[in-house]
């Protein structure tokens, strides 16, 4: 039943899985955490990116990670346009943006799901690459390469984004816009442009994240629904807008999922992220590591 080996196994794969969860949540940490945009379509954008990677991989044999990089500019522009639309219809009109905004993004998510179904069908899709399917053995433990790749890339992505937000002019402007929009305006910067840029980045990182999603496991068009819980859990638990917090929170979620998986079985897995999310919201709504506006 319970053994130390199993637990260790669970913790290791949980940490790897957690880094992957961080990669798919980073964008949301920007858009929802810093910009207060209730982007419940974030996981749908993620799955959409995975299908982009799938398309390039299947049709032209492009390596999934490279494919992820290739679609990144497209996703960036997509984000710029999406934020413009959101801003024009909600933020500009003021009030009630939260309620209608979340309904709006749900609508978008449903549209994306159906378009993916119509284009690619409801079946699972996966990619091929040399590192998928192989594993690394340490003693009894077997660590799949695809998780290692996801782990390494996710860690790099988190570090890059953290550096971007703290070291570059634009990154600091993004942090500032989250704190005090008026102050920025007084300094002559246009907060809307900055927010739009930030939202663009939040969707751009989905290129790589989408590649990781389909490298880690096959995807289907409605996969986004189980990632609503995971991504929002990670972002809320992290404390809104904290990148390093996002990494830690994602690892906590990954380990929790892996442990529950080993001890109680897969049928309980979908509830873990949501249960943790509920717990955090009820007990410590400001998150474990950060601010709450």
């Amino acid at each position, binding site marked *: 039943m319970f053994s130390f080996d199993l637990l260790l196994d669970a913790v290791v794969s949980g940490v790897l899985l957690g880094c992957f969860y961080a990669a798919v949540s980073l964008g949301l940490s920007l858009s929802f955490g810093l910009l207060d945009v*209730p982007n419940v379509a974030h996981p749908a954008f993620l799955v959409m990116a995975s299908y982009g990677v799938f398309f390039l991989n299947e049709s032209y044999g492009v390596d999934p990670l490279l494919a992820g990089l290739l679609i990144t500019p497209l996703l960036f522009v997509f984000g710029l346009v999406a934020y413009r639309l959101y801003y024009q*219809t909600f933020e500009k*009109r003021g009030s*009630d943006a*939260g*309620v*209608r*905004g*979340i*309904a*709006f993004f*749900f*609508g*978008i*998510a*449903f*549209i994306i*799901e*159906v*378009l993916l*179904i*119509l284009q690619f069908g409801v079946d699972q899709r996966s990619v091929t690459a040399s590192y998928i399917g192989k594993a690394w053995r340490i003693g009894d433990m077997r660590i799949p390469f695809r998780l290692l790749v996801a782990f390494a890339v996710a860690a790099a992505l988190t570090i890059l984004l953290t550096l971007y937000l703290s070291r570059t002019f634009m990154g600091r402007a993004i942090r500032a816009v989250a704190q005090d929009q008026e102050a920025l305006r007084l300094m002559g910067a246009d907060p809307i442009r900055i927010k739009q840029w930030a939202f663009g980045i939040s969707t751009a990182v989905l290129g790589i994240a989408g590649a990781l999603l389909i490298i880690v496991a096959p995807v289907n068009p409605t996969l986004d*629904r189980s990632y*609503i*819980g995971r991504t*929002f859990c990670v972002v*809320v638990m992290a404390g809104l807008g904290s990148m390093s917090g996002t990494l830690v929170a994602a690892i906590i979620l990954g380990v929790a999922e892996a442990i529950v998986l080993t001890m109680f079985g897969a*049928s*309980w897995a*979908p*509830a873990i992220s*949501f*249960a943790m*999310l*509920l717990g955090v*919201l*009820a007990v410590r*709504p400001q998150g474990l590591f950060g601010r709450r506006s």
Partner: protein
Amino acid sequence: MNRGGTQFWIGAILFLVATFAMTQIIGNQYPFFACYVILQFIVLAVAWNILGGYAGYVNFGTSAFFGVGVYTAVFLFKAAGAPLAVQIAAAAVVGALMGFALGLLTLRMQGIFFSIATIALTIVIETSITNWRYVGGAAGIQMQQPVAMEPFNSYVQMLFFIQALLVVLAVATSRYIQNSWIGRGLQALKDDELAAECTGVPTLRLKLLACVISGALMCAAGAPAAMYLQYADPSSAFNLNYSVSVLAMSLIGGTAHWAGPVIGAILLGTTQQLLTVTISSEVNVLVLGVMLVLFVVGAPEGIIGLIGKARRNRNEGEG
């Protein structure tokens, strides 16, 4: 009773007479299958609106209440062979308790955090039911319809009429709330919770009341669904599509008036029925998404708002 009240009740009685007459005249079962779903959506949308529209707490957990209603009925039927009336009443009680718990959540979270919490609640409950073998687990459970009671020829006709009764109950409740001090208090706390408190509004009590009523009605609406389909499984009973459909219906119709969700449910419900039959259920979801986006962007006050605006314009044109 004032004139509006009399008109309303005459309308309600006519509606019930008409639905009853349908069950006695029409022999074909199909219209009842289709209309049952629309009636069910009217109850859900009207119930949702009591909390989401009047109080401004956007509940994405409609499917949690609906699903719990379904499984309350399944459990009682399997365990005790309970009759339909008992299933519905018990579901209402369970829904009221769930609503109370949801109301307590509003103490800790507002706005989008509340909405996210309701999604979370749905998945947690769904997963628990999935792991509950007694009611069928993930595979679901078959239900055998008993023979219909007099004067109905078939069980589906009976369910259809019962759902019509629930519609009248839900609409009358919602209308009463809107026109009473409860509605005014909910509107005040929707606009500004602190200002409402400081003006004497017992916000917590009103929110709990709205949650309890809304929850009881949603669960009650779900209770007959298992018998209707003769089958229940967690992933359909708790499907997120219910939550989003019901939200879309209320927003499309307009949330400020009890009639809004009724209009929205009839419109979207009918469209969905037609599409599911003629094209496919995927297109159905596509239409749901597109309508939701269009209305949220183009007509934030819904159809009721559009009608009101048209009226004001006409008055201004005349005067």
